[in-house]
């Protein structure tokens, strides 16, 4: 490590953080929020008694989990334009990541709903609640607590997966690192720095996860 390298590290931190704040973080938050709503809908569809509804949900999950995220990104960004659908880079990435989270998180949510003891449903019915009300006020709050650890996994994976957006013209953390590395030829330094920034973001998220788990413990029937 020469003095020049340290100067480069010092001068790169700002641009890298800006790449994280303007690219990686919004990409993660928006995609996760949309993906979560999608996942809840898909999970409920999977649990539906109607064959068609659960079949569609099953097919969607199967495609998302059975194809590489990078390929999904490329299809949305490079292949859709040949059908006249041209989506800008950032929204393309959001669409791809949301669909991806929707597929993975749907299974998590479905499992969490099924993990709530049957007695809870029965008890709710005896006090005169209908299906929707039971789901909303008895089952989901308990399911949420069960779903937090695996959903946090999905969330943390998503932070790192957003680096794939660098391949479709989105300037996020990794792309910023490559931009700085190119004229200086200091790829090792910049990739390591980018890794540290990713790691810091994930550390913050892990802390948030622990706190969220503690708060949600109140909803669990003991």
């Amino acid at each position, binding site marked *: 490590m020469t003095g020049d390298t340290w100067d480069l590290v010092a001068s790169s931190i700002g641009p890298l953080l800006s790449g994280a704040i*303007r690219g990686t973080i919004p990409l993660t938050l928006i995609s996760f929020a949309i993906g979560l709503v999608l996942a809840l809908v898909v999970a409920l569809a999977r649990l539906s008694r109607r064959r068609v509804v659960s079949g569609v949900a099953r097919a969607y999950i199967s495609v998302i989990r059975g194809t590489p995220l990078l390929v999904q990104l490329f299809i949305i960004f490079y292949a859709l334009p040949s059908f006249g659908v041209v989506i800008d880079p950032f929204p393309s990435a959001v669409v791809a990541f949301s669909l991806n989270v929707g597929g993975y998180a749907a299974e998590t949510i479905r499992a969490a709903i099924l993990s709530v003891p049957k007695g809870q449903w029965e008890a709710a019915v005896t006090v005169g609640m209908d299906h929707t009300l039971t789901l909303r006020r008895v089952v989901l709050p308990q399911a949420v607590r069960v779903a937090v650890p695996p959903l946090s996994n999905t969330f943390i994976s998503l932070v790192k997966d957003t680096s794939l957006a660098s391949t479709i*013209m989105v300037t996020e953390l990794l792309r910023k690192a490559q931009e700085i590395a190119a004229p200086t030829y200091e790829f090792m330094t910049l990739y390591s720095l980018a890794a540290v920034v990713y790691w810091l973001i994930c550390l913050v998220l892990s802390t948030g996860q622990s706190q969220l788990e503690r708060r949600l413990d109140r909803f669990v029937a003991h």
Partner: protein
Amino acid sequence: MLRTSHRLLALPVILAVGALAACSSGDPAPQGEGSADAEVLRVGTEGTYSPFSFHDTDGELTGYDVEVVTAVADELGLEVEFSETTWDSIFAGLEAERYDVVANQVTINDERAAVYDFSEPYTVSTGVAVVAADDDTVTSLDDVAGLTAAQSATSNWSQVAKDAGATVEGVEGFTQAVTLLTQGRIDVTFNDDLAVLDYLKQSGDTSVKIAFETGETVEQAFALRKDSELTARIDEALATLRADGTLAEISEKWFGEDVSQ
């Protein structure tokens, strides 16, 4: 309990709104909408290939190709708008009409000319083979057979390496290839002599060296979609810039010599 469940359902919404607010100031510049805009020359380039297309210390996109294409746009009275993408996706982006011109040292060859339009060349260079500094076994194309080379999958250098009988590993670009070379994971990489000379100059790297020149002159030009109405106009602008010395001037600035012809 009622309030709680509402809050649970509201959580994703709050997240989304918060995230949108966070990025409203930081959205990347919108790309053009599919068709060639009369006012704008939409250019695809790597942004990580110095000295042709890269970001300077202020984060500004610059380089030989960037300046040439900007001069062309000025000549045509157009605004220039850059989209940056990796080399291996650069033609996919051109076909998907994400931009109308590729300015990234695209070497003219038959395979490409069959599929794309090329402007008149604005760079003439030669191919070189780069090896580890202590490797004296590679002195000509004949020595490359059976060796392992690293090239970006769709570059013309990849074909050069294949034709010479090398096994080709795919990498992102020249700098990654050099890293693999210094780590002893590959034996050779081919590239444009201008890119290689710039690398040796900028990085001060003494662990690799130019083994030999491939002996063929290659010409680089702007690539456009087949039958683009822009090709003729760009050629005209290039001719003007060549005649008035602008091209030579830009070339001198980046390479200390005129590589534009």
